């Protein structure tokens, strides 16, 4: 379950004056195994909200519960363990440049100390799924934008997370790849993974009519 209760976020960089509130009084709840689109214009706060969900930011105030754990009360170790249960597709992919496609996808499993046998099986399977089994040894700078995005998606789902958070996952994909990705995400969702996908792609939202959280100027204007 993901639950936000009157959550506010204000970015505070050291040595600078605090910025305006990025999120204001956000409250919503997503049940286990639920699916939510996260929509809104650029600058509405979608990425900020996702950052709070995958524990990359602390809220200025309010209460956040992720997969049954109070984020604010988690120790650093507990927070790390919680992050391992969350798959994240970053808007900018964040692939590690020194690792090839295989090792990038294997990273979450290795951090979770899964056996190499399991890593090989799961990474091989997911790379086939995203259509990049032939690009195992390519480094990110040798991959196209779409390929990098598929590697980022594979990395997010390879460890079978309980919660999948995706920030514009179809941004660099053609329609066929986007459709293939949605099949993967909905399959994971049917297996019990809670999914939150931020997107500008209205066509996709219409084709997959899941409930929607809509943000404007840091406020939640639609939930359902």
């Amino acid at each position, binding site marked *: 379950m993901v639950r936000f209760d009157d959550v506010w976020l204000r970015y505070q960089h050291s040595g600078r004056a605090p910025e305006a509130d990025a999120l204001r009084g956000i409250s919503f709840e997503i049940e286990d195994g639920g699916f939510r689109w996260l929509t809104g214009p650029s600058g509405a706060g979608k990425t900020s909200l996702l950052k709070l969900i995958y524990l*990359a930011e602390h809220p200025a105030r309010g209460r956040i519960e992720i997969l049954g754990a109070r984020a604010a009360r988690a120790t650093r170790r507990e927070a790390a363990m919680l992050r391992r249960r969350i798959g*994240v597709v970053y808007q900018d992919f964040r692939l*590690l440049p020194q690792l090839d496609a295989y090792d990038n996808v294997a990273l979450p499993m290795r951090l979770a100390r899964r056996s*190499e046998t399991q890593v090989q099986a799961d990474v091989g399977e997911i790379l086939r799924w995203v259509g990049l089994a032939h690009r195992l040894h390519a480094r990110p700078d040798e991959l196209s934008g779409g390929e990098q995005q598929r590697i980022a998606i594979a990395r997010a789902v390879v460890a079978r997370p309980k919660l999948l958070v995706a920030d514009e996952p179809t941004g660099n994909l053609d329609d066929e790849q986007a459709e293939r990705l949605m099949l993967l995400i909905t399959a994971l969702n049917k297996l019990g993974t809670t999914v939150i996908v931020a997107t500008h792609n209205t066509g996709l939202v219409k084709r997959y009519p899941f409930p929607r959280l809509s943000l404007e100027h840091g406020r939640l204007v639609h939930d359902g």
Partner: protein
Amino acid sequence: MMARRRGDLLGLRAALADRLLPVLVGAMSFLATLAIGGALACATLAAGWQGNIETALTIQVPQPGNPDAANDGTRLAAVQRALAVDPDVQNAAVMSTAEMNKLISPWLGSDAASLGLSLPAVITAQWRGAGSADTLGAQLQQVSPGTLVKTGAMWAQRVAALTTSLQACALAVLLVVALVAAAVVAVATRSGLAQLRETIDTVHGLGALDSDIAARFAARAVWLALGGSFGGTLLALPILAWLAWLAAPFTGPARLGGFFNLPPALLALALVLPACAALIGWITAQFTVRGWLRHLP
């Protein structure tokens, strides 16, 4: 699919390069080896000198051929008889004319006898008594007035004080070197962290523990410090061997051993110092990385 190595996940080989850090740690180890070698040499020399000086007894008998107080022979013979019966005095021997000439030649020239000076007889001996030799001096004054007795106790104390101060200096050098080595590792680690900020952000976001990330930096720092320190120590050993060879006349070959026979304690430095450098590298990297990671949520 073939099994694959986990390898350098963070890209530390590029971010913590094998150039500056090993060279600086090597330089610190070079200095530390010289400091420890100096301290050991100082202790060895001092131990030898103290052993000889502390028990050395020198007796000067003026007008040795004149009659003694009891008019029972020469003053020199009377002093020799007194020394012979004293159980605390051993190996008493009158210095020969040749030895006397050698001793005073720096001041009086090569043939002092030709100057017609009345030189005292000098007796060297070993003092085995527990206390001072003042009582012996008083006894000898009675049989041969004007006889002087000197022991090396005061010089031994001075040598001990000098040794202690030199060893304290060496310890201070070691502390400074260790702190500089730690600072070098800390700066290199912070530089590596800055270069890998995005990578660490990502790995942290994927659920890496602080200890996982710190351990990878620490392992890299250990290898770099170990290699640099080993090289620096090995470079310093020939210099120590050369200094030992120079010092050999003052110590005897059995103590500092000459060029190819350094004491085992010095040779052990080649293993101990790199291990210490590795430990400093590990601890410093761990603290630096864990401190830096505290800035991440």
